[in-house]
């Protein structure tokens, strides 16, 4: 590729006017382009503005704007604003959240549920990540990983639906148990915390797998060998070498899984029941129907955002590794 560029330019210099071929040449010769380039070459400010304008506008307008607008609405006493109305600000929506157990309890359930799911995912995925990163031959690691990644490209809804196939009253597990005569009546598994956590772990395991794998894979084998040579048993080796060295992966994986789980929406709609009402459903209800509930919905979203981000922030601080990446 470098060669190509060099050859192209060299040729261009010889021929003088036809410096570039193809559409790039057409573009480079157009007056508009030449004018712009001339302007940019003259002024450092214009150069900076050209690089900065679109990204900064995008970030300010679409990444920060919606959150600010949500915060703004959460403080309004009179919403929707009619023409000529002066906005009146109040904290009553936030007070409502802490007074009303109808809102507060689902929130607590959501937090506890997310923590439990995060812990369960860590326990289930860690051995898998360790197996791919350390047990199998390096040559087959990519294949072992790709095999696990494939199901994740099926959408959220499709994977939730496939969990219904497994757990429904007339689903595969109950059919199998009845076939073997273990049960007469189907065990109700769907619409419970069991089906919900089963489905959510199914949806998010990937977010745990990738960070864990990349940190475990980086642990030098020589350290593991040294631990064994010095007399560490498998358990001690795990506790004193592998676990501390995979801390970065654990922290990023848990943070990602927690943030995703607390905002999970499709899974509780389809896999949850009346007993498993969690916070996102409560918020969603406030946005259906009339507009005057929006400030409450916005306030609850802000509370949820703040608490989930602080939880993750604290977690990273306390457990923290040196090189925690959320991506």
């Amino acid at each position, binding site marked *: 590729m470098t060669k190509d560029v060099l050859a192209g330019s060299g040729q261009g210099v010889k021929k003088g006017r036809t410096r570039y071929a193809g559409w790039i040449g057409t573009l480079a010769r157009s007056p508009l382009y030449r004018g712009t380039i001339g302007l940019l070459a003259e002024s450092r400010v214009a150069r900076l503005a050209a*690089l900065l304008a679109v990204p*900064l506008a995008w970030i300010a307008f679409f*990444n920060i704007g919606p959150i600010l607008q*949500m915060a703004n609405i959460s403080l309004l006493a009179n919403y929707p604003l009619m023409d000529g109305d002066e906005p009146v600000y109040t904290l009553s929506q936030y007070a409502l959240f802490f007074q009303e157990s109808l809102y507060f309890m689902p929130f607590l359930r959501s937090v506890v549920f997310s923590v439990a799911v995060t812990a369960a995912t860590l326990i289930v995925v860690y051995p898998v990540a360790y197996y791919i990163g350390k047990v199998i031959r390096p040559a087959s690691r990519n294949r072992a990983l790709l095999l*696990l990644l494939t*199901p994740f490209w099926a959408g*959220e*809804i499709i994977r939730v639906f*496939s969990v219904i196939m497994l757990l429904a009253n007339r689903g595969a597990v109950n059919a199998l148990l009845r076939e073997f005569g273990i049960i007469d009546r189907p065990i109700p598994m769907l619409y419970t915390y069991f089906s919900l956590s089963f489905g959510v772990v199914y949806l998010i395991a990937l977010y745990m797998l990738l960070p864990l794998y990349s940190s475990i894979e980086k642990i030098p084998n020589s350290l593991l060998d040294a631990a064994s040579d010095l007399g560490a048993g498998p358990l001690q080796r795990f506790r004193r070498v592998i676990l501390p060295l995979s801390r970065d992966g654990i922290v990023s994986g848990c943070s990602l899984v927690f943030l995703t789980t607390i905002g999970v929406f499709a899974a509780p*709609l389809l896999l949850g029941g009346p007993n498993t009402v969690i916070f996102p459903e409560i918020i969603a209800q406030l946005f259906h129907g009339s507009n005057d509930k929006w400030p409450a919905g916005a306030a609850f979203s802000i509370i949820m955002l703040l608490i989930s981000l602080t939880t993750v922030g604290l977690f990273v601080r306390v457990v923290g590794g040196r090189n925690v990446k959320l991506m």
Partner: protein
Amino acid sequence: MRLYMKNPQNVFLTGFYWAFVAYLFVPLMLMTAMSFKDSNFISFPIDSFTMKWYVQVVQDEQFLSAVGYSLMIAFIVTVVATAIGVWIALLASNEAIWGKALIFALACLPAVVPGMIQAISMRIFIRAIDVPTGTFAIILGHTVHAVPFVVIMAMTRLRSMPSNLVDAARDLGADNFIAFFRVTLPYLGPALVGGMIFCALTSIDDFVRTFFLGGYQTTLPMLIFAKISGGMSPEINAMATLVLIATGAIGLYAERRVRRSRN
């Protein structure tokens, strides 16, 4: 070498890995198997097989229009998100810019805000800027969500790019734009194509943003969701299986491509 030998805990880990593979694949396989069931109800066991659900699905107007609509949205989202994402990545990896860490962090904000809250904040936001729910709102929501992934992918690739490539182009007389289009962009190429496919797939798969931002026309996940909530027949299984095969194959291809470009 000891690590690769068969010992009890490695046997256990091998078993655990395959159990996990089963956990991921069995539900999807059951779903696929059910799509061949010759009955109007979804229930196990399956005793007779048919292809009629597939015949019905490929003739289903609703399904075909949802596929078209989802693809159209995914295409626009991918193009816009790639352009903006690469632009932000160039900015955030420019040595001369002050505060690039902050810019990067803010650019990645939509990737860490829980999906539900992001959807709601967009719903509130489009009302404030007078955009109705519908196609444009969906595209906006999906694009905001997709940009961070392009930024991260492009920055990872840019970091490995020798800076003298651009310097050489500049010395040979290329201006900023030409250097970008003929040196930087081709270098980003392989990683970017993978990133673009991911953008398209996340847009096609997205449920929560479409749920809050969508209008009357349904996207693919919305259609499947509506069918699941409104009584089930194996037709949904056939539909979901077709989508599963298509997205799985494309995702696998993109994943392989990105991993190869990193090595």
